[in-house]
């Protein structure tokens, strides 16, 4: 079985500062990796995904993530955050052998951006 660990439950950050959200996973088979964002009282929106190829993935809203197979990590970064980036961020994995595309989510990281 696979699992996803988000090491930080909450990350406070000042506006225009960089932010990194950490995600580690474990799986006996290869996985696809995703980051989703959830704004208050809304559903989840895909930020970016890693399927194959370049390990540096760029997503929407200026976010990027780097897949590190040896460290089984998929950390999310943004060089300069805005107040509007305040949200919950979920890392997720999907087994490449799973044709249903089911997602296993991490517990989430709450990002709070202050002026």
């Amino acid at each position, binding site marked *: 079985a696979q699992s996803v660990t988000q090491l930080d439950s909450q990350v406070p950050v000042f506006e225009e500062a960089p932010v990194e959200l950490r995600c580690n996973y474990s799986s006996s088979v290869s996985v696809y990796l995703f980051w989703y964002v959830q704004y208050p*009282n809304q559903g*989840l929106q895909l930020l970016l995904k890693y399927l194959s190829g370049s390990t540096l993935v760029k997503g929407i809203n200026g976010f990027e993530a780097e897949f590190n197979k040896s460290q089984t990590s998929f950390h999310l970064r943004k060089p300069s955050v805005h107040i509007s980036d305040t949200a919950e961020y979920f890392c997720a994995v999907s087994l490449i052998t799973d044709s*249903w595309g089911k997602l296993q989510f991490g517990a989430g990281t709450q990002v709070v951006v202050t002026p």
Partner: protein
Amino acid sequence: DAMVIQNPRYQVTQFGKPVTLSCSQTLNHNVMYWYQQKSSQAPKLLFHYYDKDFNNEADTPDNFQSRRPNTSFCFLDIRSPGLGDAAMYLCATSQIGGFGEKLFFGSGTQLSVL
């Protein structure tokens, strides 16, 4: 334009009173999912449909049922809601046939149980 629509946005029910949550999609995707997300927790998959084939997760309580009368609609029925069933319920869709298709999520229905 909304592609996965969940109604209602907020639902209040009484302990033990059956409740139905609805989801519709305009994407014509063949897979529809229901996730349960309790406060400050990760979304947890309850079940999914591939076309009309129903797939239940092993740890989904029997209290939760689902119906998919056609491609566009999917319903979540909670037969006898308990206080522990209060949560955000998220519907999602995807199209099987490629690699790692992303899921399209609705905005969710926040269920309160009194």
